[in-house]
């Protein structure tokens, strides 16, 4: 074991954990510490989740009855638009990369920080600015074009499309800044001896995500700018009355937005890969299968956008090609699922809240993913396209996947982030509630789609009512689960027992640092010769003891 000294002074200050190293509001707002930026993002994306959740609940409440329940049609249209935009651009895309990617990437690479700490802080403020701009549109009259901005509706709608478009454009900028930062960090900031094939799998998935963010997001920005100039200057790019082509917009939009679903799900897969190894106490069944399939998804994900347009009037040949390419993406996901399942085999599996979330993820991802194969089958998609089946499909796989992995990550790394333990019992109960609610929200929507109920319907024929009521009931259970999660995590934050450095007995590098980590991550450079999954070896001794080791450390569940 080599214990190289770090190239900076170990002052008293740097011994203190990052939460206490400095104090005062300014020390947070001006921080360049990736861990503090991660926590600021945590607060911000949780706010977005809350906001998007409130819009979702309003949508579900309106759908309790076939005709007007709470609000007018135009309010309803604004609500589902805001729900989609807030959840996609302000919660799911930034959630895992900006919070856990930011916090963990340097820890997992043995670095002091990300490559560009100032850019990292800037990306937070850009995110906040973009979010404020997006939400401002609510006051400025609302936007009702759905999160997909389809032209020519978006270029002619009387609502405030432009500010929302601009807000999403700015959010995209933040996404690009984060992605760029992470790519450079992975390439240049790895500790000595840390080779690519020894990086924790979470790093691979964040790396693949960052590539998509950097390559695809500019196309979204471009399309939204074109929509804006089409509206403002009547250029006629997408508006057919001016000679534009509305289908071109769909191509450009999905060229970003299909890869964007992998921006959402790849980090989730990274979390799941870490959780399954830690709680099975064994290495992944195949490290390379998981690492390379992330890159495979990132690559093939760029070539499948047309499967959103099977009935949009694209050629039969295009539909065929996009159909088969979509099947290939499914294979990469299947490889991951098989590898995670095989990892459980011959493990020594302990079952705590993060592991429960692993199970919900697996369930939603496998079943939701298989319905993805079904909708990629072109003739079946003709019936399902733009119905609730598609809504249920992407909520299962993309939202369910991201949300369960995000919650799993929050529970798994909570002791590392805050040095506190939450109540395992409340964790389990809330996790089961969240899943039950989620399942009953979206399972009926698959059947609604089969029955032919189109999405974005404010009023609907009466035969669809009881399934809608069931779905709304599920949404209430889901809300209860999320609220209770917020409550017990807040309690743990204030009064939870101190966490030990490595409460789950993980071998991954981030657990070699104290909980919470010191300001510069490691007091002594840990050994990156060993693999982050060497569960057959005895647990390495902690090179940097926790600064508050005097207090007795608890592990969760006690």
């Amino acid at each position: 074991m080599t214990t190289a000294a770090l190239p900076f002074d170990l002052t008293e200050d740097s011994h203190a954990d990052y939460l206490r190293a400095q104090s005062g509001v300014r020390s947070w707002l001006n921080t360049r510490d990736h861990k503090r930026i991660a926590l600021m993002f945590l607060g911000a994306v949780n706010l977005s989740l809350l906001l998007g959740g409130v819009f979702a609940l309003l949508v579900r409440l309106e759908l309790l009855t076939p005709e007007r329940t709470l609000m007018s049609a135009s309010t309803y249209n604004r609500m589902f638009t805001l729900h989609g935009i807030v959840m996609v651009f302000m919660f799911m895309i930034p959630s895992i990369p900006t919070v856990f990617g930011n916090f963990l990437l340097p820890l997992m690479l043995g670095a002091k920080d990300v490559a560009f700490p100032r850019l990292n802080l800037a990306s937070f403020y850009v995110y906040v600015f973009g979010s404020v701009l997006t939400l401002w549109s609510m006051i400025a009259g609302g936007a009702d074009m759905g999160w997909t901005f389809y032209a020519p509706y978006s270029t002619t709608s009387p609502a405030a499309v432009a500010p929302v478009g601009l807000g999403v454009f700015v959010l995209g900028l933040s996404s690009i800044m984060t992605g760029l930062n992470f790519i450079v960090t992975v390439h240049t900031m790895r500790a000595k001896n840390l080779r690519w094939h020894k990086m924790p799998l979470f790093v691979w998935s964040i790396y693949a995500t960052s590539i998509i963010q950097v390559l695809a997001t500019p196309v979204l920005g471009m399309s939204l700018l074109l929509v804006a100039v089409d509206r403002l200057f009547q250029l006629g790019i997408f508006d057919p009355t001016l000679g534009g082509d509305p289908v071109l917009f769909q191509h450009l939009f999905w060229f970003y937005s299909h890869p964007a679903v992998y921006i959402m799900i790849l980090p989730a897969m990274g979390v799941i890969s870490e959780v399954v190894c830690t709680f099975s106490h064994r290495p992944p069944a195949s490290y390379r299968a998981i690492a390379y399939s992330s890159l495979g998804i990132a690559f093939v994900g760029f070539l499948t956008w047309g499967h959103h347009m099977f009935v949009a009037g694209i050629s039969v040949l295009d539909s065929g090609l996009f159909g088969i390419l979509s099947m290939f993406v499914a294979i990469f996901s299947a490889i991951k699922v098989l590898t995670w399942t095989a990892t459980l085999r011959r493990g020594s599996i302990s079952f705590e809240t993060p592991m429960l979330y692993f199970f919900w993820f697996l369930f939603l991802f496998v079943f939701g993913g298989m319905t993805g194969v079904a909708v990629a089958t072109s003739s079946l998609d003709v019936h399902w396209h733009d119905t609730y089946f598609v809504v249920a499909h992407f909520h299962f796989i993309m939202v369910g996947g991201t949300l369960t992995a995000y919650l799993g990550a929050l529970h798994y790394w909570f002791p590392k982030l805050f040095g506190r333990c939450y109540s395992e019992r409340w964790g389990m109960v809330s996790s089961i509630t969240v899943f039950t609610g989620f399942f009953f929200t979206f399972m009926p929507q698959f059947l609604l789609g089969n029955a032919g109920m189109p999405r974005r319907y404010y009023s609907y024929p009466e035969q669809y009512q009881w399934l809608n009521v069931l779905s709304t009931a599920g949404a209430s259970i889901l809300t209860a689960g999320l609220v209770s999660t917020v409550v017990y995590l807040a309690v743990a934050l204030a009064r939870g027992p101190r966490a030990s450095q490595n409460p789950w007995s993980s071998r991954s590098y981030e657990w070699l640092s104290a909980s919470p980590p010191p300001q510069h991550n490691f007091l002594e450079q840990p050994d990156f010769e060993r693999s982050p999954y060497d569960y057959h070896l005895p647990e390495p001794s902690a090179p940097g003891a926790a600064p508050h080791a005097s207090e007795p450390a608890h592990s969760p569940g006690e």
Partner: protein
Amino acid sequence: MNEILRRILFLPPQSSTIAPQIDALHYAVILTTMAGSALVALAALVFVIRYRHRPATPIPLAPDPATERGTRRVEVAGASLLLGLFVLFWVIGFRQFVQLESPPANALTIQVTAKQWMWTFAYPNGRGSKGVLYVPAGRPVRLSMTSRDVIHSFYVPEFRVKKDVLPGRTTELWFEAREPGNSSVYCAEYCGEGHSTMRARVVALNDADYALAIERLPPLELDLPGPVYREPALAGIAPPERLSLAQMGERVATEKGCMRCHTVDGTPHIGPTWLGMFGSLVPLSNGRQTVADAAYLTDSMMDPRALIHRGYAPVMPSYQGLLSAPETGAILEYLRALARPPATTVNAAEQAPLVPADAPPIRLPNELQAADAGAAQETP
């Protein structure tokens, strides 16, 4: 079996000829994938119980290359099996998709116009209906669709068909209703405040009822100067003769100046002749050729310089904004009528049965006016 699965999956009745085929694939795909998913979930559950952590569990063994190879083999086999299965789904699904996209040659064509938030239908006899689409059962029907404003999508769940309806373009969809009966039409592409009220009905009728039904409809309202009637040969002797949709198209084409450059007798002029053009292979100036279908012809009206007919100068102006959606449909119907030898088509259309002399103008059925008012209709 079909009926049981259909009900379990909440699928609507199979009212078109293609619906049972599509549902058969639906069952196969859903049952296979759900069984596969259940297998994975079950395996995970078994592993969690079988390999649960016990306090006395020794430190797991070092990774064993032999076991790893075994696992890898299982994974490769599993992934290959899945790939084979997915490709099979794709092959069958794509064949069906091609079928969905290929209307039979003998299909009856009805023009569909979508606007916020109403469906209107124009029949070959020049009559129109709003909110209710009459079709003959047991005959393939092709819908030639365009939109007056934003994108809509024509969706009949009972038929398992759907197609976006675009402004400035013509898209097509076909189906064959199996039996007389009602089916619901939904707009499936979000189109604004009234999106969810943009519903209509397909009423499939047997041939005789269909002929009667469309004969009783009011004439299509086109924005043409003068009545869409042919002048009676001798005033007072015969009732005014209503124009067929193709004849309306001829009238529109004349009014809008198409005939200054195009002929209908086969002689090329400033532009190519319309005689026999519909459905033919058109040589293009870029060296390729294309089928002159409704989509190409609509594009050629709205964006004439995109694909130029070889041998003609690119001098045609765009008709974007100058031709309304129903007028475009009428011209297409005229072109379609000119596709075949004129003696059998245009003249036949002219000789189409007239409204019986004693038939009073029949009002629309009540539900049509309800649809007119934009009211939502219950689905049967």
